[in-house]
């Protein structure tokens, strides 16, 4: 919100400002209250929910979707959408894995290569996919939905071409650290997610680039008039989203122990769900990465809680659906008040 005001300072009177502020806080904390309530209920009905091990599990299960959702937040803030992240997860995962496998049939000749090289390759693949989407969106004015739908299909096809449709097993211990390692009892998966989140939070709330992301989504014309290179911003958010999808893909492969060409199917939907539940508006310019974090946590906590209670997984899908729609209804109600 600060960012929006920086471009178009609020002109409301004191009362209107207060009311708006309340609405904003209500929305911002509404989702947090929902998360706390769900946790409280689960803590009461299930004795294991609040154990350290289960909390670690929830965080671990949030990490991969959380990282995708952070990237998606950048994109959605600029009024865009990135439907390709699930396919990029598979492509980056299989490319990185092929460099970090001891299997003679699935690996790249001369391998296995050092884990850092494989990770650099996976990140590059993800960023390259994002860059292509970004160019198509920012330079050729193709709607983001269409451009990234194209990438969703193309990246999945490239994944199957690259590996001949076969999984890449037998990953090196060094590479698997990003999926199964622990530092002082905290899973490396969670540490990576935390670092990604903190950097994204800092970028969006404290840097010029972050302010420009909000401005480019909130009011692109005003942003252009005030000298912001909106095209460049629109390009860069897809590179960020693609790079994070690449990272998530490698974490998934390292976690499961094998890179599968079918990995990540429909992951974009969970990422978008986390962003939307977290209160970021699909109309652009409004939202916070902290909301996305809470949205991603809420999805995992609900899934985890229902698993702990032995509830059929089909209910998880129903509840996620209700959450998404309820969050957007809240968002719409806030827009009407404004």
């Amino acid at each position, binding site marked *: 919100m600060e960012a929006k005001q920086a471009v178009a300072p609020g002109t409301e009177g004191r009362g209107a400002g207060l009311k708006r502020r309340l609405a904003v806080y209500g929305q911002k904390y509404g989702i947090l209250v929902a998360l706390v309530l769900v946790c409280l209920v689960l803590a009461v009905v299930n004795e294991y929910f609040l154990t350290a091990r*289960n909390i670690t599990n929830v965080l671990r299960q949030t990490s991969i979707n959380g990282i995708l959702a952070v990237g998606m937040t950048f994109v959605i803030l600029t009024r865009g959408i990135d439907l390709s992240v699930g396919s990029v997860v598979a492509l980056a995962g299989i490319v990185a894995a092929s460099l970090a496998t001891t299997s003679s049939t699935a690996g790249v000749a001369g391998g296995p290569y050092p884990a850092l090289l494989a990770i650099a390759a996976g990140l590059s693949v993800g960023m390259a996919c994002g860059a292509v989407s970004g160019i198509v969106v920012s330079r050729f004015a193709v709607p983001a939905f269409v451009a990234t739908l194209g990438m969703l299909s193309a990246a999945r096809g490239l994944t199957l071409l690259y590996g001949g449709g076969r*999984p890449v097993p037998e990953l090196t211990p060094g590479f698997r650290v990003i999926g199964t390692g622990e530092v002082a009892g905290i899973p490396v998966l969670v540490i990576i997610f935390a670092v990604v989140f903190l950097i994204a939070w800092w970028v969006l709330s404290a840097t010029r680039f972050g302010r420009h992301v909000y401005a480019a989504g909130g009011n692109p014309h005003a942003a252009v008039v005030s000298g912001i290179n909106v095209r460049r911003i629109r390009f860069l958010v897809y590179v960020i989203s693609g790079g994070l999808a690449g990272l998530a893909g490698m974490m998934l492969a390292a976690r499961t122990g094998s890179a599968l060409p079918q990995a990540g199917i429909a992951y974009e939907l969970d990422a978008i769900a986390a962003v939307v539940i977290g209160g970021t508006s699909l109309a652009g310019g409004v939202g916070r990465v902290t909301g996305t974090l809470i949205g991603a946590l809420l999805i995992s906590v609900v899934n985890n809680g229902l698993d702990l209670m032995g509830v059929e997984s089909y209910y998880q899908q129903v509840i996620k659906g209700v959450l998404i729609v309820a969050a957007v209804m809240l968002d719409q109600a806030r827009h009407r008040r404004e």
Partner: protein
Amino acid sequence: MKKTLYAILATTALTMPAMAQDKPKIGAAVYGLNAEFMQIWSAALEDHPAVKEGLVELTIFDGRYDALVQQEQFDTMIAQDFDAIIFVPIDIEAGAAAVDAAAAAGIPVVGSNTRVNSDKLKSYVGSDDVKSGYMEAKYVLDKIGCKGEVVIIEGPIGQSAQISRLEGNMKALAECPDVKVIEQQTANWSRAEAQTLMENWLTAHPDMIDGVIGQNDEMALGAIEAIKAAGLNVTDFAIAGIDGITDALLAVKAGDMASILQDARAQAQGALDVAIKSVKPDYEPMSDIWTTYSDMPWNGGTDAEYSVPWTPVTAENVDALLALRQ
């Protein structure tokens, strides 16, 4: 992808009139080529002696996991006067209409690997999923001494393999009344989903789970990763899966699990032998699978069903099986 391209090229070649006069044209419509099992199946089909010696023209169609795509591929094959079709349907019910259409055009259809609910199939060459479900559950129950607590990780609810493998699981469980199934849930054949599920179950039932019955290898492997991530000892659990995918063979070798191998090669090559026989009455089967499996006699290629036996993967045979994958 390479196979699809090959299929397109092969189809183009076949439509040239001069070529296919005496060679039977045989099409194989498989539900999808993205996963390892059907890749092994397809490679085995292309590796059949009759194909390698050029006695038949083989075209493989990738159904891309879509019943409608498979139906259209049948229409294509009928239009191009294929002599026989080998069918691996995505869905037990949705495939019946395609078989009807081929039967109406006088083209024999041989089922393989997955079932289709049709009485117009010439024959079916596959493995009985009820048996594998029984075998894997039996392994788990034997290892825990027929008492204790187990979990079942199921395939997508309603798919024929899930239904049949569960039937087999339950048959074995009925023989051990002291074993309690404390959780039973789908992970949709997915390793990542099974891993999350098992992590949550290990939390909900600390020190209680003795055995894991995974209805395929991927999900059993996901459970193993969850056990490792929880800092527990995999050898304290009895874990079994089905299919014999390469990763599972490696896990069997490491002593982490048991797997029941589904012989994709025998299913594919057996189906092709039966299909050729239905076109050329004087044909004798060329694949070596008929000598490998004495329990599955050829019987002149006219049986309505050929049940390819399952092979338990053991420490003794795992190296030989892995060598076949190279």
